[in-house]
């Protein structure tokens, strides 16, 4: 059994003269929630797009359980949902969710349960474009829950959710990990990350800074135990 199911090796990407990712290497542990933490412009979204094979990288490789994964087969292993998108904007929520449940071979009952658990029942007939920011975010998380890839990557999954909604979503994500999936979340709110994640991957200016559990990072940063992610972030980034 490999503890690190996904290994990213030296991923680099330049946009013109801007180096968005500079030889970023990291490991994503199995059945955990890994948070990619970094300030705005750190390269979080570029990293996730590159990992998902949705943005061509200049260099770098991905390994899944020590097997190299070429770009064209990434979608068998990873499912990535971007932040602030309104996919199939003109269609009703229920139709879109049923479509994704069908293509992923999910049972209708699962789709119904996802709708209920993410409190989307009142919005099933609404068009995706008409959803509020928070409801749209829950709709995107629902799409992620319906996917079947072993790794689910969500960009800013808590952006737009209030505290209560967030506290309801986190256990749902935890259930996924206990069901055998691994989550990679890009989060820029450190308090949210601390609540949701087991592992933290710190990025800054397109470079990998550090990785580990909170206590490991506190040790690395020379912070007192229990000082929190904010202190770690300020020291390391």
């Amino acid at each position, binding site marked *: 059994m490999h503890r690190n199911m996904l290994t990213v090796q030296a991923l680099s990407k330049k946009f013109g003269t801007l180096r968005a990712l500079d030889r970023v290497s990291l490991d994503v542990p199995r059945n955990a929630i890994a948070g990619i933490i970094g300030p705005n412009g750190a390269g979080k979204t570029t990293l996730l797009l590159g990992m*998902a*094979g*949705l*943005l*061509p990288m200049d260099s770098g490789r991905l390994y899944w359980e020590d097997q190299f994964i070429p*770009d064209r087969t*990434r*979608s068998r292993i*990873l*499912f*990535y*949902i*971007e932040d602030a*998108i*309104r*996919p*199939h*904007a*003109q*269609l*009703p929520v229920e*139709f879109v969710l049923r*479509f*994704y449940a*069908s*293509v*992923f*071979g999910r049972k209708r009952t699962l789709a119904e349960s996802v709708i209920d658990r993410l409190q989307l029942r009142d919005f099933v007939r609404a068009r*995706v474009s008409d959803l509020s920011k928070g409801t749209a975010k829950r709709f995107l998380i629902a*799409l992620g829950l319906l*996917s079947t*890839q072993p790794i689910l990557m969500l960009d800013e999954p808590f952006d737009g959710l209030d505290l209560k909604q967030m506290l309801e979503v986190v256990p749902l994500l935890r259930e996924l990990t206990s069901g055998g999936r691994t989550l990679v979340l890009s989060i820029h709110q450190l308090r949210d990350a601390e609540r949701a994640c087991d592992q933290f991957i710190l990025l800054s200016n397109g470079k990998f800074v550090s990785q580990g559990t909170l206590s490991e990072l506190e040790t690395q940063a020379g912070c007192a135990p229990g000082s929190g992610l904010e202190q770690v972030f300020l020291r390391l980034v």
Partner: protein
Amino acid sequence: MRFAIQLELRSLLGSRSLWILSLLTGPLIGYTFIQAIALYSEASRTALVTPQLAGGLDPFDGVIIPTYGAIYLALTLLFPFVAVQTISADRDSGALRLLFQTPLRSSALLAAKASAVLFAWLLVELLGLLVLLIWRLSGGHIFAPETLCLLLGHFLYGIIVTAISLFAAAVAESASSAALLALACTLGSWVLDFAAAGGDSWLAKISGLSLTALLKPFEQGLLVWRVVGGIAVSTAGLFALTLLWWHPGRPFLLKFRGTAAVLVACAVLFVPVRHLSPSWDLTEDQRHSFSPGVRTALRQIRDPLRITVYLAPEDPRMMDFNRSILAKLRRALPRTEVVNPEADQPAMFRTGEDPNYGLAIYEVGSRRAESHSTSPEEVLPLLWNLAGVPPPAADDPAAYPGYPLVVTSSRNAELIFYVLWPALSFVSWLLFSRR
């Protein structure tokens, strides 16, 4: 695949662009049809008084083709906006990236999108079928083979415009630039044809490959297999390029290499397509063909026929010669070689002092004959003599009877195209956008 088609159809039915296309196309086609009927009725009144004129009244040319001209206009100017949306809207909303990560194959996804776009094409063509139905119910004559040939031409035109639009959407970053790119091809073809009309310049040669030129033989009742094959290869090539370009994760170098491979494959496939047997004349009066007896006699000519003609392409005699002799000869004897030294000379530099001007030289093997005539009655005997083939027995087919028809009222057509169709389009849009 079934789920993908459902998704695409539902997205299309909920989109405003489809119903705007439908709303605008109905009155446009209706107006053209009603005008065509009025003009045809006017000509028919004269023909009913003077029966000798009836033979010139062909409803295919007088009513059907002008009306389908409006459909062509809708497919050229409006349809690309609907087609590009199927990819561009998904790209803008972030749906495309999600779809690429589902177990759906990229080709299945493209097939679903193309099917949805063809549904939009069908909606436009439905108006054309309505035209045929109204014309038939008004007592009008329809000759099925040439009408089906026209419908096939429109289907192929719809397919290639779909392929161009989807490829434009795959390479362009936004819906507006995709629409501009697609229109540059469809509208550009139209402008190119207009600019090159009548000439034999390099512009005219390029215009032979334009989309408008592809539709022309079908409008003339000619099923040209080379054109059908050419459209099939081009469409397949464009779909392959779309598959290559629309995935955001593919490196540019891979797209570039793939594009080169697709272009080479298309070029290779075009070689056998160019040698496909000429065409079928599906017109009722067989206007593009010699009589069966003449065709049989022509096929007895074993040596290749070479014709050197000294006539400027824009000269009316050349146009007549081309229509009544050369085009028919090429269909009956595909190995016929036609050389026109005048065509290489730009029209503005022709002095008219060439002593050979107006002459046509016919060569069969080592034998040769000359004539200034452009009439089959004089040219064919010359060919029989030259090739040593006995002239065919007279088999003059029955003259085309013509189908004059006076339609006294176009009220039903006005009601359908100006009122019912737009109302139906509007209600459908309301219905699908709120479901």
